[in-house]
């Protein structure tokens, strides 16, 4: 949130179209290609359309969650309440589905609404009470976990996902193209539109660069920050709803594996963790990169321990490549 780094100072001699490409996004896409090449050496079925579509489908769950995370990161904040917001969305949607025909219809909106509520608490805390986002989101995560533990009695709930949830996550409206991918594409297109073509989007970037300046220019920064957190909460919960549809039921700690990857996807896609800089294309690249990495590691039958280590090392290494703050002078 403090200083913003200048990018591409040395690239002024390059042709114009090359200069417009963010080096971080280019690196991320290059890594995707490298991973695909490496994977195809390991197994020939790696480049088959079925496999790639399957990967895209898996990536779309992370993609939906990372979209919300990106909004918040662009503000220079962070949302660490992802794990239990995802679980809350999934559990509440499944719970609503158990309440007769009305519940089935309202299952998905209800799950998302619960996520928006968690996001609103985060947003009010960050924007109006000026609590550091990292702290308040950790706290709401703990509260959401507490609520879900009390609700479920500490076990995975018995309610199963509704038909609509399953259809959204596993069905395919257009033959061959999974619905989850379409959902991600729609959300992605909407995000690109909001971020680049609306006042809200421009304000998000402005606040990320310097909130004080944005406030003095007449932006209601507190409302924008609160809205962004609510959107992040809603999208996390929607990700949870999709995941519940995919697995046909909600589970305890189902959101835990999504916190680190969603931050990693956003940051690897070139969005500055200090806020104010980043493109949705980069986030898409980051999400696909993370999903492919996960997939290759599981194809190689890498145990959980190795996966965690590789994640951490990859994130630190990529950040050291292009995510450093400017040196103090």
């Amino acid at each position, binding site marked *: 949130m403090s200083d913003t780094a200048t990018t591409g100072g040395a690239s002024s001699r390059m042709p114009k179209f090359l200069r417009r490409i963010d080096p971080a996004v280019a690196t991320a896409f290059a890594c995707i290609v490298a991973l695909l090449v490496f994977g195809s050496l390991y197994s020939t079925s790696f480049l088959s359309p079925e496999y790639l579509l399957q990967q895209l489908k898996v990536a779309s769950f992370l993609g939906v969650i990372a979209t919300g995370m990106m909004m918040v990161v662009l503000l220079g904040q962070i949302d660490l309440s992802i794990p239990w917001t995802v679980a809350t969305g999934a559990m509440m949607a499944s719970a609503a589905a158990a309440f007769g025909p009305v519940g089935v219809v309202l299952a998905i909106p209800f799950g998302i609404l619960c996520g928006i509520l968690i996001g609103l608490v985060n947003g009010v805390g960050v924007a109006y009470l000026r609590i550091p986002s990292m702290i308040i989101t950790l706290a709401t995560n703990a509260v*959401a976990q507490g609520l879900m533990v009390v609700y479920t009695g500490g076990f995975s709930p018995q309610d199963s996902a509704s038909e609509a949830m399953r259809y959204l996550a596993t069905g395919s409206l257009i033959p061959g193209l999974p619905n989850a991918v379409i959902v991600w594409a729609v959300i992605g297109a909407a995000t690109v539109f909001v971020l680049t073509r609306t006042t809200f989007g421009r304000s998000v970037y402005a606040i990320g660069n310097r909130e004080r300046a944005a406030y003095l220019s007449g932006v209601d920064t507190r409302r924008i920050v609160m809205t962004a957190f609510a959107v992040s909460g809603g999208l996390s919960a929607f990700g949870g709803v999709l995941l519940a549809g995919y697995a046909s039921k909600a589970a305890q700690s189902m959101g835990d594996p999504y916190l680190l990857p969603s931050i990693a996807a956003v940051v690897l896609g070139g969005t500055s963790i200090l806020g104010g800089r980043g493109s949705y294309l980069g986030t898409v690249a980051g999400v696909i990169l993370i999903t492919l990495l996960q997939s290759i590691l599981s194809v190689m039958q890498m145990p959980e321990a190795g996966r965690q280590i590789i994640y951490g090392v990859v994130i*630190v290494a990529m950040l050291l490549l292009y995510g450093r703050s400017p040196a103090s002078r």
Partner: protein
Amino acid sequence: MSEWRYRLAEQKGTLLALGIFVVMFVIYTANHPAGFTANVVQTASNKGVLLAFVAMAQTLVVITAGIDLSVGMIFILTNCLASWIVVGGPVETTLGVIAVLLVGVLCGALNGAIVIYGRLQPIVATIATGAVYFGIALLLRPFPGGSVNEDVADALTGRLFGVIPASLVVLLATVLVIWVPFSRSVYGRAAYAAGSSEVAAYMSGVPLKRGKFLAYMLAGLLAAIGGLFLTFFTYTGEAAYASGNAYTLFSIAAVVLGGVSLFGGRGSAIGAIFGAFAFRTIGDLLFVFDLDPLWQPLFQGVVLLIAVSLGAFALFRVKNRLEWFG
């Protein structure tokens, strides 16, 4: 204004944490079926010091205006390591303890190097290194198990002269050996200066980088002492992801309760220790009042939410709205 009023103002956070802890502990022991006995105090202090060590670790980093989201994972990693190497005779046990502490220092140094010399944001950097530390812990202990030198473990978790909990004595010794010299040294002041105004400190020629690096390193060491104690209490090592996350979270809560400013530059590890004791006692209050343990996570979460919201009261004193943006 006389000097003692300055001193009092400086220690306000610590004294408040002490006050909260004393009140909570009196309520706790008054309602405990066994009352205020050496046994109750020993159990409470054994549980309390674990969090106290991790909270001290968190304090050192928070003072520099950073945050260490990997303390819980260093804690778990050293626990798993100790369950392998702190065994056998006196020489082996001593070497094992030293090795565990060194690994803690190494983890802290890695965090410090990445954050200070790599110039990455502490949040993301320590989340990532935390994943690495947890991965290593999982490699060491895919399944819970292992053992520890039980004589040492019993001695350090038992009571001295039948009354004083030994773990409290170790905590006191740690404060005297690590925290007091650090906070009074040039590097300790540099860590505080980095937290209160990095630019001003840089202009004054304060050894910022070394001070911050030392803070991260000592944080790793303190988390490792915590991990060692966890092994002494449980006799086993377990790579528990949820537990590591919980300790990271609770350490932040303890630090806030202990009057340490999350924006850096203000607070002390002693305050964080009382914050940790207070947080633990609040969690245990549920048991003496015979409530369903299922409610404990929610109760702790709400306490945490209230604790972190307390800082918002400073907003009422803001005269110029631009101060919102720091």
